[in-house]
């Protein structure tokens, strides 16, 4: 990995579901340590876009690179062909993802959720994985829930375990897909607080699809507005919330703020 250059670079990413073009050439660079918030109305392609970054969705054209490595595809004679499953898995291990609906493994305790991938994907010795896992769970404020199953945790607690689980792989970039949208209002704060800690104290590179404008304003280095499968405006939170230029952005913000 080069110290310069973006951690994540997307170039002209196009994605179609059948005849519907949901991404119409999206380009975005994210530098190390940056927090980029993607906002926009539902159906604008925000979620599809970050799912393309770790190849949970195949793309129809364009390219995505993380740490300078092409994701999901190989170049052969100037053409892109889908990479082997094993290589794709290896690339995904470098990209953390937090889902709207947590997707914790319900048959495993909080700690087992966190140590699963380090042990079985990376081959980390069990004692080491457990020590790291405990430290991570303590960091997200769940030091007393190591042996609790997800079914016994609140939504906010589950999402914090999910964040710890993704962090355990020590990813180059963390993707958050509307991490607070499925939460009760009173627990949203605890998840956002954890995310702020990642951004401010740990310098984690983060791409966050969110409707939490307060979070975007406080934490983001850059805010990106998507509409109808394209990025229509991007800039600093200050520019974005105080003097948006695009008519569509103004309308969206006036509705949501």
């Amino acid at each position, binding site marked *: 990995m080069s110290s310069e250059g973006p951690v994540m670079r997307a170039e002209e990413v196009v994605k179609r579901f059948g005849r519907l073009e949901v991404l119409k050439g999206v380009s975005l660079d994210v530098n190390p340590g940056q927090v980029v918030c993607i906002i926009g109305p539902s159906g604008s392609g925000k979620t599809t876009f970050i799912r393309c970054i770790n190849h949970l969705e195949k793309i129809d054209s364009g390219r995505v690179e993380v740490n300078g490595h092409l994701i999901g595809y190989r170049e052969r004679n100037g053409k892109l062909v889908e990479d082997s499953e094993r290589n794709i*898995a290896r690339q995904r291990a470098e990209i*953390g*993802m937090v889902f709207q609906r947590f997707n914790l*493994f319900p048959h495993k305790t909080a700690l087992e959720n966190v140590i699963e991938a380090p042990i079985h*994907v990376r081959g980390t010795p069990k004692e080491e994985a457990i020590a790291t896992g405990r430290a991570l769970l303590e960091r997200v404020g769940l030091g007393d829930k190591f042996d609790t*199953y997800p*079914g016994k945790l609140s939504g906010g607690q589950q999402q914090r375990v999910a964040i710890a689980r993704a962090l355990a792989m020590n990813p180059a970039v963390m993707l958050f897909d509307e991490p607070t949208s499925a939460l009760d209002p009173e627990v949203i704060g605890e998840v956002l607080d954890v995310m702020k800690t990642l951004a401010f104290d740990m310098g984690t590179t983060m791409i966050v699809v969110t409707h939490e404008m307060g979070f975007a304003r406080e934490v983001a280095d850059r805010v990106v507005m998507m509409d109808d499968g394209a990025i229509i405006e991007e800039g600093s939170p200050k520019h974005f919330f105080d003097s948006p230029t695009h008519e569509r952005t103004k309308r969206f913000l006036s509705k949501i703020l």
Partner: protein
Amino acid sequence: MLAAIDWHILWARIFHPDHVFVLALWRTIYISVGAQILGVVLGLVAALMRLSRIAPLRWLSGLYVLVFRGTPVIVQIFFVYFGANLLFGFTLIPRTVHVFGIFDIDGAAFAGIIALGVNEGAYMREIIRAGIDAVDKGQMEAAKSLGMPYRLAMRRVVLPQATRFIIPPLGNEFNNMMKTSSLVFFIGVTELFGDAEIRYSTTFKPVEYFLAVAFWYLVLTSVWSLIQAQIERKLAVSERGDELSFRERVAAAWLPSAMRIRGTP
């Protein structure tokens, strides 16, 4: 009518079974267990083949279900045992089969296990497939996002959760299997049903012997029900992190909606 029943024979069959009978009971048990294990293994393989990216594997899996679910199991038993001999003139299954080099079983019983197991596999494929489908798609995505290849994700994340959906119908299947295994009598295996058949043909007391054999099948299926409840309880513990009492599980079985009202935390 009732006066015609020789109660003495009935009680003797139930309370003082002789060693010939015990051997027949043992045959029923090992044929059912062996065939069910084979069925689960084949069903799992066929279910995974159906999910494969390789089209011929998917077709093969479909053909397997079509053929073995679509023809009578008694016909399959006959074909496994006599088929090679009648069609090609050689003996596929010898008189005695050495299993894993540890113990010997009668060739006909072995053929019965194979035929019942292959038949069962076709039903198990559908049950296992439904179990895999019932696991939330987000689980596979979460596993993949952590860098797990498909097979690892299947083994560590999806299949353990599918088990919870598979065990209840699997219990039904095994219950059926114990009774269906009586069909191997027709290729000459003296299991529970066969034993009753032989006794009655020499004594002309069908009611006594068949009532007794019904009683023993009932014992087998009842014991299995208890074992199954125990397995399901274990699964429920790891799934929810708490334990339901037997009474709650019975209530839940009859009133699925009552569970939903209880809700998740």
